């Protein structure tokens, strides 16, 4: 963020400088200018970004360490059905997870494309009919987190929200059983 503002300021400075009254035409050396500004400068910035970006992305994916829980999120127009590995029944529009560890969410859809997005827990992944995508989420603290369908899916898209409730690990099983016993609600 700061970096981009700095770059913006520098570029605008370069552009506006020649408009100053005092400016005399300077015979800037073409090759030096373009090699350094046009090639070296973006390459350095980009390499830095890439080195920072790729491993960070890799670590957000499922697969490294085994998850503490695996759940299934099935989208429909317009709502979510959540199922839990090894458990009967489901909950709708409320997802229960244990806090403090990675949870894998298997996201799919039965009609159009939706997207699973709980901003404070992870990035987002699309719910695509005919395909299952795995997203790893993690809530470090127990609490209630908001989620939202993040791919336009028709009339009910705006209202297609859901909630993620993260429970303390020791209380999770009991809370999940209670939720599954209730009529699918939370």
């Amino acid at each position: 963020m700061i970096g981009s503002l700095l770059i913006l300021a520098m570029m605008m400075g370069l552009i506006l400088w020649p408009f100053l009254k005092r400016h005399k035409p300077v015979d800037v050396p073409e090759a030096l200018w373009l090699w350094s500004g046009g090639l070296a400068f973006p390459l350095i910035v980009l390499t830095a970004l890439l080195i920072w970006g790729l491993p960070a992305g890799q670590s957000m994916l499922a697969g490294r360490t085994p998850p503490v829980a695996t759940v299934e999120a099935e989208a429909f127009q317009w709502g979510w059905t959540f199922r839990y590995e090894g458990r009967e029944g489901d909950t709708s529009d409320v997802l229960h997870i244990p806090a403090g560890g990675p949870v894998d969410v298997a996201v799919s859809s039965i009609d159009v494309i939706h997207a699973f997005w709980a901003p404070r827990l992870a990035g987002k992944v699309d719910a695509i009919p005919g395909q299952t995508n795995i997203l790893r989420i993690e809530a470090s603290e127990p609490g209630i987190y908001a989620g939202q369908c993040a791919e336009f899916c028709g009339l009910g898209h705006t209202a297609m929200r859901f909630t993620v409730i993260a429970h303390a690990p020791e209380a999770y099983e009991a809370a999940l059983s209670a939720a599954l016993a209730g009529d699918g609600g939370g």
Partner: protein
Amino acid sequence: MSRIPPITLHRALHAVWKAPRGPGALSAVNHSVVGRRFIITAFVFFAIGGLLAMLIRAQLARPENPFLGADAYNQIFTMHGTVMMFLFAIPLIEGVALYLLPKILGARDLAFPRLSAFGYWCYLFGGTIILASMLMGVAPDSGWFMYTPLSSSTYTPGVNADVWLLGVTFVEISAICAAVEIVVTILKVRTAGMSLTRMPLMAWYLLVTAGMMLLAFPPLILGSVLLELERAFDWPFFDPERGGASLLWQHLFWLFGHPEVYIIFLPAAGAVTTLIPVFARTKIVGYGWIVAAIISLAFLSFGLWVHHMFTVGIPHLALAFFSAASMLVAVPTAIQVFAWTATLMRGRPQMSLPMLYLMGFFSVFILGGLTGVMLALVPFNWQAHDTHFVVAHLHYVLIGGFVFPMLAATSYWLPLMTGRMPVFSVSRSAFWLIFLGFHGTFLIMHFTGLLGMPRRVFTYEGGLGWDAPNLISSIGSFVMAAGFALFVVDIVLQLRFGRRFRRNPWGGTGLDWAMPAPAPSYNFASLPLVTSRDPLEDNPRLGADIAAGKGYLAGAPRAEMETLCVDMVSGEPDHVLLLPKNDYTPFLMAGGLAVFFVLFLFSAYAFSLVGVVIAAVFGWRWLWSLGARTDPEPLDAGHGLVLPVHYAARSAPTILGLKYFLAANAAFFGSLIFGYLFLWTTAPDWPPPDILDIDLLRLATLAAGLAGAGVLARLARRANDKGDARWRMLALAGSALASLLTLAGLGALALLNAPSPVSHAYGAITMAVIGYAGLHVLLGVLFTAYALARHLFGYVSAVRSADMRGAEIWQAYTAITALAGLALIVLMPGAFG
């Protein structure tokens, strides 16, 4: 050399070139007229899209706003995106290119004036269809990228999505026509001595842009055709229940959609490159660097499409390729920006009006580029994807990288059209309103997005921290709208009260300012010999010399519309292009297509073929009007230069145009093959139970028919080159016959052997490949029949060989693609089944 006074020359030329008035205006084909129509229509659509944006911002100004419901909102934002991208941005570029190109290249018109007129009518009719649907309340409502299955008939049963698919395809036809027109014009139709490396950089930009259009639009056209086939005839390309893949649409769409952003950006950058040296009173730094940069940019932009699909669950390694490629485009962009800054440094720039808009461009676009780099990072994209952050980024790039430079270009070139200068005080206020309103709207929207507000929601709850930024955005957008209104006022004032001038008010050095303003209908009274990149600097009196007929092809001594065609690289004159007179054919042919599209929209599928027949009849008539029945005499171009007429020249534009059209067609075919392989490797339930079975004999017959038609057409052309009329006719007839038999064979294949196209995507895509081959063979029959008719009526000779070469090329293309398609659909089940 010539002693004729300029005014006599002007009268003679104008008599031949003047645009028709009244109802005859429908027949106008001149590039200035057609270009102006494109530009004005595009700005009208901009106003409509802007109005829709105002509705969006009005709705989002407050939380829980009851102003618009979800249905209306969905139609409005979809239409806003669609109108802005397909009916404003692309056509505006085409219009600017068609209007300017002959003027900067030193030509009197484009290579195929009727083609661009045809393109204009396609654009107008297609745009009208889309607009009419909005007035009837059945506008497209699935977002401007129309993801399936939301846009499939199950979830969008009405006519809304069909309007998008058919209307946009109609408009894309015009884009392909314009692209062919632009490429051929730049490569062939220039003035004497204008070598490739003396061309103004704007021409390079447009050349590269048009090349990109040829390759980028076909995937979208293919996607639309497939989706319309699914919606109309239930062929399940995208239906996961029947072996389709909804992601195929996304790939095809973004294969077009990402290059599209650069297609919009490059001409705008071309305008920046043109204007900066003029107002800095110096020459552009790094001509060669810029050419290399834009060619790299064009290629790289095709390697980015998946970056719109980071969240669909593509493996991380595959994403990394695209991530790396999308960062790479920063390099050619930076090269251009540094070439511009270096030019400013070298000169003594003034903050005149066009420059002011360029400053707006710089500040907005650089920020847009930086947020783009942020979005290119996979982890950040997962957070910001589909929030208002993306909306903000998109408008920084589109308005910053396109609208601001186009406003600069408008204020720079409008005087050429009107012969009057802008009214400065009004223009400056317009700029500041637009600039401040823009930042008020979109700068703050980055934060709204980072606070988590998703895009495409028709309302939101209060108290999430989104209220204040949304209100500010809405106010900003109304300020911006006021600015645009003032811009229009400025144009009106300029037309009425602007100060008149005769020539070159800005001190430009290109040929566009070597003509009087307003630009005459024929552009140049004679075509100058160019010896550097800045002809007007070498000879400040060039304009007067041209008007006095001191160049080539002075006046209109033969009462023909003439311009020079040159060698592609060196710019040495090669032949004289005789341009067509005004003609209703393009209008009527586009009208035939309009009949087709409208009837198809109303599901009258069989009747809609009437429209195709109408279009084909006029297409035939169009081709028929080319050429002549006797071998033409060479023409005296002046200064001792005697040149052949284009239809007797080997490198005539027509054949080149056909080749570029086939390049676009090949991109279409390639996308179809990609679709086949994509379904095969990623869709569920593949391979299907029921596959194509074909015996070897039938296959061999088909292959022989295809190859035979190709070879015979080639023999016919060779016989013609040798002046052997008998063999020419026999081989042509043989080629036509072979095509006819192949067509029957393909029909039998489709009806008897191929699996049903509705039960599984396999059947659908197999049928699509057969259909592609069949359509080309059918056209092959028509082409060879046409060449035969031309032969019979005496239009063909060893010198007038275009018809023969056209037929040869078409039959060769058909043979190659149809054989490749057949091989694919026969071998894949064998290899993987």
